[in-house]
């Protein structure tokens, strides 16, 4: 704000000359447009809109004018300053936007660099496979049961209708705890868990038994002395082989895809009567490729054994075979994993090489 016009100087009044004002405005606008960055614009602002800028000085002269001239000069200078101010504001916005954009460009990184400070670990694929099977069974309303690996011979054999002369009880097949006459073995199947479940819970009963089992096989690509089984046991009133087949079909399609069904073939197992082998529709060719390597062109893959629970098993486990019927099935988890993932060498499943686990995610 200028003070009272006590020190009138005609030279300075020329600052209010319209042509001069316009020239100043033009000079300011040119400078603003020429400002290449925010720092330059800051200098331009000081030079053309600051307290010592020509237009500010001109404004200061207005007070000294005679009242009649004040209005017109004031308007002229005000408009001039307004134009300059507007231009500054716009340029400021432009330059800020440019700066912001440039920062983002400058901050760009090489996102293809692979981070790995602490890579994710894994659950073992066999565990994942077992978990998947358990979830399917639980989804059908079943429960999951487990039991000890060092197990009584009675639970492992006699209760399951393997009489004392059954060949599976030979040391050539089953690991015995020393001394053998103490009646303890490493369970050769998860079936003792079925016996325990029947004795503990009674009927009706729908349990899946998951766990590790042992046979006296040397380790090679297709055999392991310790491997994993899942068995299902249902005991209820009115159960038939149709329910067995329905359960297997459901499990097969959940594990291997829609339309994958099972086929039953007559067979023999001590703990079931009638008994069956179950084949799985080939999940590779679905029975359409006579040269399929997965099923040797047969369209079917052997999956496991099953049947209706033998009355002797029900009796041994204190369940009345006159009232209840049951079905049971069993299959290798490791084998299911091989089917599902194409893993071909069982040794890789037991060696603990982290590269085996790392091939898979946390869900198989």
């Amino acid at each position, binding site marked *: 704000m200028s003070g009272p016009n006590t020190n009138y100087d005609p030279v300075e009044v020329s600052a209010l000359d319209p042509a001069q004002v316009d020239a100043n405005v033009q000079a300011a606008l040119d400078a603003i447009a020429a400002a290449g960055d925010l720092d330059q614009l800051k200098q331009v602002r000081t030079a053309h809109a600051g307290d010592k800028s020509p237009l500010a000085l001109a404004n200061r002269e207005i007070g000294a004018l005679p009242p009649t001239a004040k209005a017109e000069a004031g308007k002229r200078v005000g408009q001039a300053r307004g134009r300059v101010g507007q231009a500054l504001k716009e340029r400021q916005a432009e330059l800020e936007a440019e700066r912001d954009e440039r920062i983002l460009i400058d901050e760009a990184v090489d996102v293809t660099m692979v981070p790995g400070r602490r890579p*994710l670990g894994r659950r073992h694929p066999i565990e994942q496979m077992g978990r998947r099977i358990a979830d399917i069974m639980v989804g059908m309303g079943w429960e999951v049961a487990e039991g000890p690996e060092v197990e009584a011979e009675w639970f492992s054999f*006699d209760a399951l209708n393997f009489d004392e*002369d059954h060949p599976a009880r030979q040391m050539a097949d089953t690991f015995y705890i020393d001394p053998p006459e103490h009646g303890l073995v490493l369970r050769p199947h998860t079936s003792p868990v079925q016996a325990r479940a029947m004795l503990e819970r009674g009927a009706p009963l729908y349990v899946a038994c998951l766990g590790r089992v042992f046979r006296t096989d040397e380790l090679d690509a297709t055999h392991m002395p310790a491997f994993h089984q899942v068995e299902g046991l249902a005991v209820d009133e009115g159960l038939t082989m149709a329910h067995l087949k*329905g359960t297997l079909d459901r499990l097969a399609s959940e594990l291997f895809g829609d339309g994958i069904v099972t086929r039953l073939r007559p067979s023999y197992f001590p703990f079931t009567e009638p008994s069956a082998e179950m084949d799985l529709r080939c999940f590779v060719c679905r029975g359409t490729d006579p040269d399929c390597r997965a099923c040797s062109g047969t369209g079917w893959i052997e999956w496991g054994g099953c049947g209706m629970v033998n009355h002797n098993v029900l009796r041994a486990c204190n369940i009345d075979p006159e009232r209840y019927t049951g079905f049971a099935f069993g299959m290798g988890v490791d084998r299911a994993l091989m089917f599902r993932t194409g893993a071909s060498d069982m040794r890789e499943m037991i060696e603990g090489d982290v590269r085996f686990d790392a091939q898979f995610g946390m869900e198989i």
Partner: protein
Amino acid sequence: MRVPVDWLREYVEVPTDARGADIAESLVRVGLEEEGLHGGDVTGPLVVGKVLTMEPEQQKNGKTINWCTVDVGDANGTGEPQGIVCGAHNFAPGDLVVVVLPGGVLPGGFEISARKTYGHVSAGMICAADELGFPDDGSGGIIRLAERLGRDDLTPGEDAIPLLGLDRETVEINVTPDRGYCFSIRGVAREYSASTGATFTDPAIALGDKAPRANDAGFEVRIEDAAPLRGQVGCSRYVARIVRGIDPTAPTPAWLAVRLTEAGMRSISLPVDVTNYVMLALGQPLHAFDLATLDGPIVVRRATEGEKLTTLDDVERTLFAEDLLITDQQRILAIAGVMGGENSEVSDATRDVLIESAHFDPVSVARTARRHKLPSEASRRFERGVDPLLAPAAAQLAVDLLVEYGGGTVDEGVTDVGTAYEPVSIALNPKDIGRIVGVEYADDRVREILTQIGCEVSPEFTVTPPSWRPDLTTWPDLAEEVARIDGYDKIPSIVPTPPGGRGLTTSQAARRLVGESLAAQGLFETWADPFIGDDAFEALGFASDDPRRQTVRIANPLSDEKPWFRTTVLPGLLEALRRNVARGSKDVAIFEQGLVVGGPAGTAKTYPVGTYPGPEAVAAIEQAVPAQPRMLGWALTGHADRAGWWGGGRAADWSDAIAVARAAAEALAVELVVTAGDRAPFHPGRCAQLALPDGTVIGHAGELHPKVIGRLGLPARTVAGELDLDALIAAAGSPQARILSNFPVVQSDIALIVPSQTPSADVERVLRSAAGDNLEAIQLFDVYDGDQVGEGRKSLAYRMTFRADRTLKTEEVNGFRDAAVAAAEQEFGATLRA
């Protein structure tokens, strides 16, 4: 069991156009699994050739080949001699040989074409036995037809495929243990008939009708089993027939030898071949004794422990008291149903033969065969149950064949001693079958099927299974017969509706959570077999009285080096760790959840099948099984936080081992009490004891002892840990929610100088307790043991965070802090660091 197709056709009307594969499919349907198809895989031209010329040519590689011309008649289309290079030498010009011409295919899909070799164009091949899929007969390779077939009336160019039986097929099937009768062509034919409806003629019926009854003139046989096994006399029937005056040089007829070969047996001599043939045909194992070597009546008795017999395989065997023997007045002649003795073997000099056709107890034969590790064709059949009514028919067939081909005459005397066969009867409610199978069968259909498989079915459905089916004893056995013959493929698929389960148990869910938490921390799950050796205990530095040496021993381990069932998962984990490092992985973090033996084993009784021993007995069995807690183990080496473009990594150290335990505990909301521990296999100064809040020690973690690392060949500073996962899960509580304050926090930092050996966790516990309820958090953020704090001392810097349900004043917080410091001063002699 190998089933030659043309033999099968003798007993059942197999359609003319049915191939081996079709037959196999029909058999699979009723439960006889296909093991393989043999024969029928040669396609011609495969013809008779007459060798015209044969010029040996020495080759640079040292071999001599023969450049031959062979007359193959018009089979080559020209009638000109065929030029063929042959590397074998066991033939001469004039010999009749087998020639495969270009375009022919040999077993294994081996296609023949004319090719240039050794400077000639060889247009075909002169065939050796093995090239046609025959066993090498020892003649040196090339088949000479005149000798092999005993004929010289062959014409060059004649098709050799039927001559050699190469168009004959054999179906190999797997016989399940319940179907012993299918170890015979008779049994398989019956099954084929049941599967397809083809007409079956039981060869045993005519033979049985023809067989004369026992009479006083028979050779005396006494069954004197003083110690029956499981209540069964070892020999329930013994039929003996005698054929005299056999020509010892009489050859086995070719058709019979071919059948034996196709069924997988060798042709030996007429009497032996006849017994094997009858066994394969009908399922009744026979034994032929040289009558001249027998002294007096035959006695079937149990052995005396330590008696000896040299069996036909030329092995002297020491007998067990349970072994059932065939003896005469002087000697042991045979182990019943398993193998004969050398001393009574039929030989080139044998003229009079006694045929034994007996029924031996399956259990007795099975035990003996196993004890002597002597599975034989006979024992395989007796173990699974031989038709007890078959003996006379089988003996008759053997007699007939010996008379016809050996020129012998049969004795009138017939021996048939033993106990009468008593069939079982099963009361069947035919509706029960549908109720277990899930298919409605009309009563007539049930009757039809059961009759078809040989049962007698009374109007009231009392079912008498046939003598060859000892496996049929209960009505579910009959249900299987009906279901399998009607077809398992007719069973519908119905998903049952259980009453609704409770989902996973708390323990199962908790184990998943722990496993996933550890995986999220970067650990990979492994699993190892549970077998360990004493060396594992030594390597881990377990003291001689370490309870982890107390476990069960495997009586028949795969390796004598590893007879123990593990008591800790660490040996397997550390082996896996080492394997990973050896295979080039440097940064390895692994874990295992697994069962170990954690308590003494008792004696578990057994009880007969099909009987519930009662709750006390079951409880006693459960008690005898050793406790098997599930352990969580882990091991880390290399970088815990890896090095890379982002900078240097951080080596896994003892604190990472403890962090794993904390992660597992935190996942289950269990407060883990960590104190200094000292336990093998850990470094005594870097071992944490892991306990529950109630003081129960559940595990240890830390750096492995340098000696353990050295003994196991692990990378330096390898860290590990192990805890009882079941105990951790059992301690998982259900924390109660409290109201969260949103008032501002006030922080106060203190540094306390304490003696070096003072555990920080103890200091923290005292501070926490003395600072009062408004202490929200306390964190150890710096540890310093440099010169400034003095020898034997360290400085612990804690950040204490206070909050209340109102805004705390500075003076109040100072008061809490001072109280905490004062408590530490009093407890540990701590001084506040300036």
